[in-house]
Every structure is written in C-alpha cells, then in structure tokens.
C-alpha cells in the first residue's frame, strides 16, 4: 500500500467539511425542534388525514390516512405525467420531422412553433391556459356536445365512461396477441437469417392485434357499453354533468401546457437525431439496393434512435418534474396534496419535504439507471 499524504489530505478535508455542515444542520434541527416541541418521526403517516382532495384516482376522503393522501398525490402526478408524455411525444415527433421537411412553409411553421413555446416560461403557459384560455369555455348548461357525447365546459371535460363486462377476457386476448406477435417476430428474424426469406411481420401483427380482441367480443362474452354524462341541476344557476368520466380543468390545462412545452424540446431531439445520421449511411444503403422505405427502417431509424432516445428520456424526466408546477393551479398532485396541505396540517416540515424529494429522486434515479443500461446496450462497440 502506497498512501500519499497529498492524495489523502484534500479528500479528508472535503469529507470533514461535508460532515461538519451536515452535523451543524442536524444539531440545529434538533435544538429547534426541541424548542418548538415538535418530535421527529414518520408515525403521522398512519394518522387520519381529515382533509379532502378534489380529484383522485383511488377512493379517498378525510377518514383515510396521510399515507393514502400521499398515494393519491403520487398517482395524480403519474397520471398527468403519462398523459403529458404521450401527447408530447406525438407532437414532438411530428414537429421534429416537419422541421426537416423540404417544404419551406412547413418547416418554418414548425420552427415558429418551437421558438414560440420554448421561450415562454412553463408556469406562465400553465396560468395562461388555466386562467385565461379555459375560462373562456362555456358553462355546463350552454355546452355544445362534441360527437354527441363529450362536453368541454368551464368545469372540465366530460367524456363517456367505458363499462366492461368480462374485461379480463379481453385483457387476456390482448396479452395473447402481443405474445404471439413477439414469437412471430423472433421467428421471422430467424427465418431471414437462415433462409433469407422475409415474412410480412407488420401485416400479421396488425391482423393479430385486431382479430384476437374481436374474437373475445364474439366468443368470450365481452360486452362494452358507455355511460354518457348527463346534465344535472345542482341549484338554480349551477349545473354539472353526472356519469361518465370527468377530467377537471386543472388536469386539462396542465397536460396541455406540459405537452406543448415539452414537445418543442422533443422536436429538437428528433431533428438532431435524424440529422445526426451521416449522409454516407443513406447513400451506402441506397447503393446496395435498399428501397427508400428500407433505408429509413433499417439504416436511418436505428441509428437516429440511438441519438434521439437518451435526450428524449431526459425530457420525459423533466416533464415529470415540471408536473409539480401543478401546485400553482391547485391540481392535487404530490406537491400540493402532500408538501402543501399535509405539511400545513401536521407541521412536519422535514419529514414531508424529505419524503417528497425522495419520491422524485427515486423516479429520476430509476429512469437514469434504466437509461444507462439502455445506452450500454445500444452503444456501438468501437475497436
């Protein structure tokens, strides 16, 4: 062992400084809490919360525990993130491809969209949609139905609910279809590698994913009916729709602004990825006789995805973190329900803020780990 003083001392000093700072903080926290008569502990999680949440995916009211409130907030955060991610991806990919279009009008339009939404703070956009744009919607009693059954009003979006019978059979049929597709895909790859024949995988998969669920309707006794929202009078001038699924305006404003904002970044990732594939690659692929479609599918996209996916995941992560801005318009997400209401009621600042931060940290660290694994998997092995 060859320890050098020069190597040890800086590390020791740094660690000492960190430990000192943390020690100082912990000591102060203890003294402060003693003075104010607060005790530290996570026991409050099982106590009755006695506050209500407007919008919740699971059953919840004031008689449930704080932990249940935490779950409500977490699920709402996840809900808004997932919807936002789906829309942002669709929009981002379209705009990203549009920016590469040879059509001058289209790429300028896309560029305008990106420059416009990227340079305005997200919080301002959320406020704009929630306080200005969505407030211009009609009241429930004046709303015109869309497609006959959907109502977009100032009190939210009311859509019909699906009511399934024997949903599990439908679900199994879907799973079976997906498994079958995977099997066929691996088989097709094997056939192509050994015999050079190509099997039309796409057609077969499309057929499978349509036919198997359809069969479940015909044979398996799956029934689907709709529950249509119906206008109901609460007071003389106050109306609301009942039945069906109602999405609160907060959720609409939040997903709208999150996806419009994040889509600009995803569009830039997509554009960079497709531009990042060398021209020589396309020319080489064309020169060995691949059709334009094959060039795109077999040569350009696999390489472009390698560039696109890591930054895009980062954007997904950003979207999830940005969904915490929900607190500003009172959408009951993790921050509002837990770090807001629950904190006010219990006064357990350290515990609650640490749980909230830890939750977000777990989300992002797990996604980064997944990302690193993926990066390693697809990385080009260089000699």
């Amino acid at each position, binding site marked *: 062992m060859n320890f050098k003083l020069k*190597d040890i*001392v*800086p*590390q020791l*000093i*740094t*660690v000492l*400084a*960190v430990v000192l700072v943390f020690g*100082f*903080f*912990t000591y*102060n*926290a203890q*003294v*402060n*809490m003693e*003075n104010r008569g607060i005790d530290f502990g996570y026991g409050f999680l099982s106590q009755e919360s006695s506050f209500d949440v407007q919008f919740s995916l699971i059953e919840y009211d004031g008689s449930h525990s704080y932990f249940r409130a935490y779950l409500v907030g977490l699920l709402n955060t996840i809900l808004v993130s997932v919807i936002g991610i789906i829309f942002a991806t669709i929009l981002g990919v379209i705009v990203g491809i549009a920016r590469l*279009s*040879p*059509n*001058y*009008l*289209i790429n300028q*339009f896309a560029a305008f969209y990106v*420059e*416009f939404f*990227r*340079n*305005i*703070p*997200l*919080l*301002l956009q959320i*406020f*704009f949609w929630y*306080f*200005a*744009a969505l*407030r211009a919607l009609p009241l429930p009693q004046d709303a015109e139905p869309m497609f006959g059954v959907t109502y977009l009003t100032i009190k939210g979006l009311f859509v019909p609910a699906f009511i399934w019978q024997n949903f599990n059979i439908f679900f199994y049929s879907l799973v079976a279809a997906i498994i079958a597709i995977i099997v066929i895909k691996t088989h097709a790859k094997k056939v192509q590698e050994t015999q050079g024949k190509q099997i039309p995988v796409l057609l077969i998969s499309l057929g499978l994913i349509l036919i198997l669920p359809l069969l479940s309707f015909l044979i398996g006794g799956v029934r689907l009916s709709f529950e249509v929202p119906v206008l109901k009078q609460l007071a003389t001038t106050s109306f609301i729709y009942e039945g069906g699924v109602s999405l609160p305006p907060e959720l609409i404003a939040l997903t709208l602004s999150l996806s419009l904002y994040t889509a600009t970044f995803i569009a830039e990732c997509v554009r960079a990825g497709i531009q990042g594939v060398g021209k020589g690659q396309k020319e080489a692929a064309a020169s060995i006789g691949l059709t334009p479609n094959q060039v795109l599918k077999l040569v350009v996209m696999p390489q472009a995805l390698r560039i696109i996916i890591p930054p895009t995941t980062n954007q997904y992560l950003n979207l999830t*973190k*940005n969904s*915490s*801005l929900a*607190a*500003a318009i009172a959408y009951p997400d993790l*921050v509002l329900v837990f*770090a807001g209401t629950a*904190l006010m009621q219990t006064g357990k*600042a*350290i515990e609650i*803020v*640490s749980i*909230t*931060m830890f939750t*977000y*940290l777990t*989300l*992002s*660290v797990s996604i980064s780990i997944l990302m690193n694994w993926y990066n390693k998997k697809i990385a080009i092995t260089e000699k």
Partner: protein
Amino acid sequence: MSKINFLKPDKENLNTFLYLGSFLFLISVLDVSLNSFFSLNITGFLPGFLSFLLPLILGFVGLYFIRIELSGNKKLDLLNKNINTNNFNAVLSLLIIFIIIKSIPPILSWFYIDASFAGDSKDVCTGSGACWTYIKVWMRRFMYGMYPNAEQWRINLSFIALALLGSVGYFTTDRFKKYLTLYYVVIYPFIAFLFIFFFISGGPVFFDFSYGIIAAILSIILGFFIPNRFKFYYFLIVPFTLYVLLKYFIFYEELIELGKLDGLNWVETGAWGGLSLTFIISFFCLIFCFPIGMAFALGRRSGFPLIRYISVGFIEFWRGVPLITVLFMSAVMFPMFLPEDFFIDKLVRAIIAISLFEAAYVAEVIRGGLQALPRGQYEAAKSLGMGYWKMHIFVILPQALKLVIPGIANTFLALVKDTPLIFVVGLLEIVGMLNLAKTNPEWLGFAMEGYVFAAIIFWIICYAMSKYSYNLEQKYKTDR
C-alpha cells in the same frame, strides 16, 4: 400545338398550365381572404360541405397544374421545390397558407383594432379587443412590484449603471482585454452586489451575504500571494474561515449601518417584485451557479474517489428533484437547520436554492465539455509540467467551455424561465404580480392581457439570449 393532357402537366404547354394553375390558386386564396377579412362567402350558394372545401380543392388543382419539373422558369422551379414537391406537400402548404390568412384578422383586431389604449380606468375597456389600459395602469407594479413609487428611480438608476458597466467589454482596447475576465468574474459582480445592497435595498437585507462576498474577494486577492502548491488547501480553508471570522468576531450591526446610505429609506425584500426582481434573481443565480457548477464538474472528474462520490451525489440529488420542492425546502425546511437567532432573508434563501439547483445542471454541461476534449490535451499540458490547476485554467477549461456554450446558454435560459417559481417562497416577480393584479376586484377579467404581456416580455428576453448564445458559439468556434 400539341394536345393538352390535363392530368399530366408538361413543359410543352407550360404557359397554359402556368396561367390556369396560378389563376385557380389565386382564386382559392382570394376566397379565403375575402371570407376572413370581410366575412364574405362568395361560394355560399354551394352546399355547406363543398363551400368549405372548395378553396382547398381549387388550390390543390392549381398547384397540381403548376407542378412542372425543370420548367425553365426559375421562379416557378423555386416555388415548386419549396412548397409544392408532391400532392401531400401541396395540401399541407395550402392548409398553412389558409390558417395564416384566417388567423390574421382575429389576432389583429384583438391586439390593435378593437383594443383600448386610452384612459386609466376599467370603463374604457368596452370593445371586444384587448384592454391595454389595464397593463398601462398596472405597469409600475409589473415592473417594480410593491417597491414604493417614489423610490423606483433607485432601481432604474442601478440597472442603467449596471448595464453600462456590463457593456465595458465591447469598448475596451486591446491593452485591457486581458483584464476583462477578472473584471467580469470578480469586480463586476461585486459592483452589482454593492448597488443592490446599498442602493436598491438601502437596508440590512443582505448583511449575511455581504460577509460571504467580502470573504470571497479578500481570499481571492490574498490568493495571488500564495505559492502554487498550497493554493488548493488555501482555497479550501481560508474563504470559509474568513467568513466565520467576519460573522462571529465582527459585529454585524456595523455592517448594517454600513448598508445604509444617508437619505435612503430601507425597502425590504418583501416589497421587491415585478420584472426587476426577475432580473435581480436571474443575475445573481447566474453569477453563483457558474463557479459552483464548474467546481462540481471538476470534482466529478477528480481522481480522488471521495471527492468524486460527493460531487456525483450532489449533482444527482439536485437534478433529481423539481425546483418547486427545492424552493419548498428553502422556505419551510431550511430555517429549521439554522441556529435560532440566525436569520436569512427569503430572497437570499431563494437565490441560494436556485443557484444550487442550476449549478448541478451547469456541472453536467461542463462535464460534457471536459469529456469531449481529447486526452492529448491533458497529456500535452502535463508533459509541459503544468499542475492540476494550471492545466485546467490555461488549457482544459478554455477549450471545454467553448465547446459547451450552447449547453450553458440553455441552462441560463432555463434559469430565467424558472424564476416565476419563487412564488412558492412568497416573492412576486412579474408572473406573480399578474396573478395578484388579476384578483383585484376593480380589474377582474383581464387575465389574458396580462399573460400575453408577460409572455411577450419573456419571449423577447429568452429569444435574444438564445440568439446571442448562437453568435457567441459562432465567434468562438475554432477548428481543431
């Protein structure tokens, strides 16, 4: 004259197709324009659906006729190449043209024609357009927050002075160019701090901050006289020690007195707000997050495992949590971690929180630049006998920072766009002031105008910053 096949436009009948196609295309545009500007529907006699689609069909046929490859007419070729390469593109182009024509009148009338500008009460806003009177009346609040009207010249004067001092870099002669870095990194922030401390605040707001800044400046100046081999330890120990010494052995009342200028009233930070607060916060966070981020980027690439782990932990922690929870922490949790008599102003706490948060992002960006440098640069510097600090300051960092200009600019843009979040700690910059003004009973119902106004301001700031960073990138681009 050969026979004309209308399904296949060709070069021989170029003129026929050109006139016919342009005519149809112009008719379609004219129809939409008339409809949009004068709400005339010249195709109203047709059934509804057809009347709606007619411009699209006419325009499509027109564009189809003029799609003649290598026609010899340069303008036509250019047009075809840019908006009319195939059917799909033609439809999209038409749709975009129609959308633009359709959207001009309502936007224009809302913004200008039907908008009200005059007057100073809600009564003048009767038109269907925007009520810019609202912005006019609330302008001072949007710009300065609750800062007293009589004292606002202090903010103006400070900002003008700082802008002038900041533009020094453009006017220096070559002789002084080498001092510019020192000026911008040490002297300029210090001057800015003094302005805010003495002038905008005029009171004991930043006293705790001032210890830190004085300690930093003193230790940097003393640092020039320390031999190289001890510099690391020096900078590890001395600034903090100086800070503690200043804090506990020099009475801060004296500094409070120092912070007061005769004849200036103290304006506490709770009253600061509006766009000026956005600028103050962005400015200080920008100054602080850069060195912190650089330190952690170097720490993450350090050869000492313990320092590396600590840096990684720091960076990943801040990058993993949303800013709003960080601000929550600074608002409710951080005071618990401090001694009881120790008070830090909430603006300072917000600045610290945002700086640490953005520093983690800056660190990752700079690390990208450090990793992108070829190993030869490190080895060459080492072979010249340079130590760690000399190598990084003179060889590695200048090149790495050049590489990451776009990334750093993006981080700073994100920082500016994140400032509205300080509503969490109860500070109201421009977006916060808008929300406050919106709830004023005398001015209900003008949320849209306010948000549009703020959006325009932020858009201009951010767009200008991104264009400037692009210029910088081009300027410092060196071929390697």
